[in-house]
């Protein structure tokens, strides 16, 4: 760690991981409710647990992105963070607001929550992923603006690297697109259309810039490959992401009202959306193969390769599986969507945050060459347990989805099974998904356990000579 102010990333990472654990607990509750329908009813109905599960994900990923940014921007810019104090204040504002919102979901009836937070003044609640009370949405906006100010003041006063430029561009996009969460027209089709400006243009747009920049930074650090080469890859990847992903938004416009030309545009462009993720796989593996140094933090390198591969599988392959309009006609809103959602979020965004944590946390804890070998082995066990569990969660949900389509969607009206009758028929897949989810939780516990192991790697483990000073 070259700059003391980078350390402000630490609370962000820790809080992100705490929320991650909460997300998985609620994931298990949901998984059980899928097969034991009245589990925890009426105390925690499914809709509440789901809201907690998805909102915790969004919030902890934002904490992760912010932590990553506070860590890497000063080092890239070669200057201290503009205001560590502001970063600390915003941390507490965001942590308190986020916690209160989650507690509100759990302990206050949603309609009452809408009422007491005066949703009627500016109704924004009750839409998938955007369930937060309007006041929380404003809070998120304030935190993001303060964060952007702090980061841009830092980036602008120092060295302007491509990693910083791309990361800050992605973060500005994140903030600007968030504004659409405040737009909730009374026409449902218009509402849905602009809702995707937040949801799709985040995860299949600007978040890919953030992911690409973090991955590029970690690869520069752990491989010692020339920055020029890495920056060129980064530009190509984010170019592909935006060229395919922006018009690719059209794959969400097939069945919610917009005209038929979106069937073509959405199909063609989103069929190309796997390209940037495939390039990230090539990028990560090529850079690590061409490494100029053998840094001892093997766990970070595993996460970096893992995030590229799993993002390609989850976002790329599982996205492509159901993105063509004639296929999506049958798969839309089925368990196939859930399968894709799980692996894509885990592969692309959970794993990129865990990548930067794996790289940066040991350094912030005074272990510049990484954790001890034992701790890394335990961390890698956590990696494999979580990742393989997620593969199985995805496969079981895909199986459930295929059967659901076969029973409920393909037959003619009158012959098709009803939604609930179909759910009864595919319960076995939900049980297996739940078991895979329990293994995921076990993996998370193992991963957390790796933080408790003392000791650090030594510079002697650098097999190919000393670390190159980053140019």
């Amino acid at each position, binding site marked *: 760690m070259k700059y003391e102010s980078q350390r402000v990333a630490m609370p962000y990472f820790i809080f992100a991981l705490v929320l991650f654990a909460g997300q998985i607990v609620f994931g298990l509750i949901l998984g059980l*409710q*899928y097969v034991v*329908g*009245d589990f925890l*009813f*009426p105390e925690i*109905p*499914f*809709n*509440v647990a*789901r*809201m907690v599960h998805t909102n915790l994900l969004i919030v902890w990923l934002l904490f992760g992105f912010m932590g990553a940014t506070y860590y890497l921007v000063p080092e890239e810019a070669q200057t201290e963070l503009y205001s560590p104090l502001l970063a600390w204040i915003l941390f507490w504002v965001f942590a308190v607001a986020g916690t209160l919102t989650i507690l509100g979901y759990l302990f206050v009836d949603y*309609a009452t929550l*809408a*009422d007491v937070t005066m949703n*009627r003044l500016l*109704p924004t*609640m009750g*839409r*998938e992923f955007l*369930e937060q009370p309007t006041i929380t949405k404003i809070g998120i906006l304030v935190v993001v603006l303060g964060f952007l100010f702090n980061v841009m003041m830092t980036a602008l006063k120092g060295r302007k690297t*491509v990693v910083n430029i791309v990361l800050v561009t992605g973060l500005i996009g994140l903030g600007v697109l968030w504004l659409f969460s405040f737009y909730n027209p*009374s*026409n*449902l*089709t*218009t*509402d*849905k*259309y602009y809702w995707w400006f937040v949801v799709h243009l985040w995860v299949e747009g600007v978040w890919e810039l953030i992911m690409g920049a973090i991955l590029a930074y970690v690869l520069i650090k752990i491989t010692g490959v020339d920055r020029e080469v890495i*920056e*060129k890859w980064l*530009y*190509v990847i*984010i*170019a592909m992401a*935006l*060229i395919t992903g*922006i*018009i690719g*938004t059209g794959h969400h416009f*097939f*069945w*919610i*009202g917009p005209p038929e*030309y*979106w069937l073509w*545009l959405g199909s063609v462009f989103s069929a190309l959306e796997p390209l940037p993720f495939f390039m990230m796989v090539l990028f990560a593996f090529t850079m690590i193969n061409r490494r100029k140094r053998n840094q001892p933090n093997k766990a970070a390198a595993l996460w970096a390769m893992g995030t590229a591969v799993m993002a390609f599988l989850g976002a790329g392959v599982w996205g492509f599986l159901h993105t063509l309009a004639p296929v999506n*006609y049958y798969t*839309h*809103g*089925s368990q196939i969507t859930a399968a894709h959602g799980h692996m894509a979020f885990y592969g692309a965004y959970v794993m990129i945050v865990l990548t930067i944590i794996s790289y940066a946390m040991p350094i912030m804890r005074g272990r510049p060459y990484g954790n001890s070998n034992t701790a890394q082995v335990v961390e890698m066990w956590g990696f494999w347990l979580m990742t393989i569990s997620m593969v199985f969660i995805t496969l079981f949900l895909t199986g459930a989805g295929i059967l659901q389509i076969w029973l*409920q*969607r393909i037959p*003619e*009206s009158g012959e*098709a*099974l*009803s*939604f609930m009758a179909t759910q009864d028929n595919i319960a076995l897949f939900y049980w297996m998904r739940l078991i895979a989810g329990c293994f995921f939780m076990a993996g998370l516990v193992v991963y957390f356990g790796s933080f408790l192991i003392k000791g650090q790697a030594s510079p002697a483990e650098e097999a190919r000579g000393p670390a190159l000073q980053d140019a």
Partner: protein
Amino acid sequence: MAERFTKSMARNIYLGGSTFFVLLFLVLTFDTQSRAMPERDNRDQLTEQVVRGKHVWENNNCVGCHSLMGEGAYFAPELANVFDRRGGADSEVFKAYMNAWMNAMPTNVPGRRQMPQFNLTDQEIDDLSSFLEWTSKIDDNGWPPNIEG
């Protein structure tokens, strides 16, 4: 990548490509929203009651279990065509059905998925019914494939 392909070329593809596609997306959005949608979303029937029904839908987080036009959670049935499925495409029948349904929840059948009791007024149930009826009439390119949603 070959040396002939330089970083500045990569940057130009990124800047040029993303600018072009952002602009194209804005043009398509303008066309969709201003030309196409008025003919497809039957907005002339978007009454005050439908708008109130949308707020009932939102304030009770219905999308946390159900899907609407395929979007939402997949824990409970699709509702964009429930007007056709349970109401036989008849407003009065559908409102009567909705009233009976909403007041009968939860079923409390052991082990079954449970829908909470939202304590909606008769007026709110009528508003919600109007919203779902209006939604069922949006031109959505013929989705879902059959009545089961």
